[in-house]
């Protein structure tokens, strides 16, 4: 999950990394007040979870509090990448003499975190790494042993940085590495990390990403930052349909029947598991189908959950039929899913044989499941029918057979 810049700055400050004087404003008046307190030139920055703020006009400079208020008023109304801002950050403009970059990410192949440091800050680090590889230093570090400052020092010194700059940068990078581990980040980045004219260093911007899996154990930090459980912080805001999917999944702890993503087609999908859903979604599209949604079933959900998910998809405007398909199941029971989706149809007043385009879930308890499907006249397939073939049949039922090639 991504943090807004103002939250990232709070995390960086908590770790003891110095920062320019700043404040978050939700109105033009608040922006003016913060600018008055700063009592100097400021920069007004849109608080959106989207890159390219500068290009979109979401970053403006102001010399007076009145000018700050004017810019804030404009930026607060400016949509960037489909998002309205949470507010604006009013940041003092520091006299910077040089910009550095410091970041920490995971290296999935080495299976360790890696620190990145560059003396060319202010631009995208991937761009620097491509065009000026000799200006990027990297160093992996242990997650078992406590982080020791010399590791940061060695990283920075490897780019030829010495003198007081080295001694002032070392604790900043070391604190960044420690906060990366302590707060389960997947990205912790200070860019630019500014060297001021007096030789001191401050974080001029920060970007933090926390691992979703760590949210339960990072509750204290999230609470402190005011981030609610309902904020998914995916690349786009969840739709009401997707939030309803979350509710279906959270009604009990047995298995998964959720992870819903909304699309705008006419074929509702009740699919699983992780890899099966990815394969099936591709397969439906490869056969010219138009999915209404993506979702995942797995880990043996209750009848209630399977039913809830099927109902949600069936009731989505524009959905003509649903396809119930999974890769061969090991612990999810075929009969339980069959019961759930049939119950959903019946309770909504539909004929399951009509509404369920195909049921293709082979595996555990399949004989019991197929018996139930037989009783309701639902077309089903066992493992001899491939995922792609099942998807093709579902698409054909909803769109009719593919038109013969023109002669």
């Amino acid at each position, binding site marked *: 999950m991504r943090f807004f810049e103002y939250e990232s700055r709070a995390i960086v400050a908590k770790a003891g990394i110095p920062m320019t004087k700043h404040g978050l404003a939700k109105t033009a008046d608040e922006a003016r007040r913060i600018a008055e307190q700063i009592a100097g030139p400021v920069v007004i920055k849109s608080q959106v979870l989207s890159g390219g703020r500068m290009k979109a006009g979401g970053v403006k400079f102001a010399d007076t509090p009145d000018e700050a208020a004017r810019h804030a008023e404009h930026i607060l109304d400016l949509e960037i990448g489909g998002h309205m801002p949470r507010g604006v950050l009013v940041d003092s403009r520091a006299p910077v003499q040089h910009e550095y970059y410091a970041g920490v990410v995971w290296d999935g192949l080495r*299976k360790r975190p890696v620190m990145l440091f560059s003396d060319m800050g202010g631009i995208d680090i991937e761009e620097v790494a491509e065009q000026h590889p000799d200006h990027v230093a990297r160093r992996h570090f242990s997650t078992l042993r406590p982080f020791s400052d010399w590791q940061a020092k060695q990283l920075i010194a490897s780019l030829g940085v010495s003198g007081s700059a080295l001694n002032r940068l070392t604790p900043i990078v070391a604190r960044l590495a420690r906060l990366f581990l302590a707060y389960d980040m997947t990205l912790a980045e200070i860019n630019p990390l500014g060297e001021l004219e007096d030789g001191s260093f401050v974080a001029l911007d920060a970007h933090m990403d926390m691992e979703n899996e760590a949210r339960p154990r990072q509750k204290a930090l999230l609470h402190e930052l005011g981030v609610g459980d309902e904020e998914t912080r995916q690349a786009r805001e969840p739709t009401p349909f997707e939030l309803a999917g979350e509710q279906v999944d959270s009604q009990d702890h047995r298995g998964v029947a959720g992870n819903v993503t909304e699309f705008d087609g006419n074929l509702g999908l009740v699919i699983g598991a992780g890899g099966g859903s990815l394969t099936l979604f591709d397969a439906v599209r490869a056969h010219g189908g138009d999915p209404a949604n993506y979702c995942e079933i797995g880990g043996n959900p209750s009848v209630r959950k399977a039913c809830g998910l099927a109902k949600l998809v069936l009731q989505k405007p524009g959905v003509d039929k649903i396809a119930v398909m999974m890769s061969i199941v090991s612990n999810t029971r075929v009969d339980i899913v069959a019961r759930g989706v049939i119950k959903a149809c019946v309770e909504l007043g539909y004929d399951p044989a009509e509404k369920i385009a195909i049921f293709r879930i082979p595996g*555990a308890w399949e004989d019991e499941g197929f018996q139930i499907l037989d009783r309701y006249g639902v077309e089903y397939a066992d493992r001899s029918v491939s995922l792609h073939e099942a998807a093709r049949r579902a698409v054909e039922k909803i769109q009719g057979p593919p038109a013969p090639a023109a002669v």
Partner: protein
Amino acid sequence: MPVLIDETTTFIVQGITGREAVNLTRECLDYGKGAKIVGGVTPGRLGRDVHGVPVFDTVAQAVEHHGSPIDGSVVTVPPSFTKDAVFEAIENGVKLVVIVTERIPRGDVAQMVELASERGVRIIGPNCLGIIVPDVVKMGGIGGPAKDAAKSYTPGPVGVISRSGGMTTEMSSTLTAAGLGQSTAVSIGGDAIIGSTYAELMPLFEADPETEAIVIYTEPGGRMEAELARWVTENKSRLPIVAFMAGRFMDEMPGMSFGHAGTIVEGKEDTASEKIARLAEAGIVVAGEIAEIPGIVRDRMGAAV
């Protein structure tokens, strides 16, 4: 000799009294020649038994009861306790740890993997279904109940490595239906950091005389397909590899994660189309559909002879 495990492999189940672990234990005992599950561990449940397997409070008690080192452990404890359970297994001499648990933060996984590599221990997973040697033994929930696993898996020349547990069985079942059995199938897990990647398992399959080809299931996210492509090229592998790539639609939706935690695309090399190109450069055929895999495997095995 199969890869990683055979009928002599002894193992324990950590978290054995949990609902899914009880099923998993039954399945492994019933499958093939019957797994040698020498104990289970759930703190506070010493003295119970699960399908005849004695339950202990600690791994040390299980080892003492067994009287000699135990080869492996299947870890099925909740995410917040997994790291501790894996550390306990490693420090008590277990050499192969299969981590079933999902939703473990990467920081914990990295610690487990780091300790494992210091102690010479192999980790499979997390977020995986384990390992199966058809008709011989399975370690984990892979394939489900013994009678279902027997429908999907048969002995033969194809090694299977997959980031999805369900798709390990789906692909093996397709191979079986086409008359191509499997030497060993490994569900390696769907997380961003896992104990054993394709490239790390390749040397084992390479050294296994029964394996003549490899089938892999891949997804967007991470660099392990690129790592495999590099390994194959550098080591001039004797084994033809056929890959299936799911989640191609994700290329149109940057920043979104689907299916498994590890599918989150964090760099431009992580996309489906980029990976397909990498694999193809290394001579790895990427099948468009699962049903095409057996035919391609046959062609490639023929070509390799």
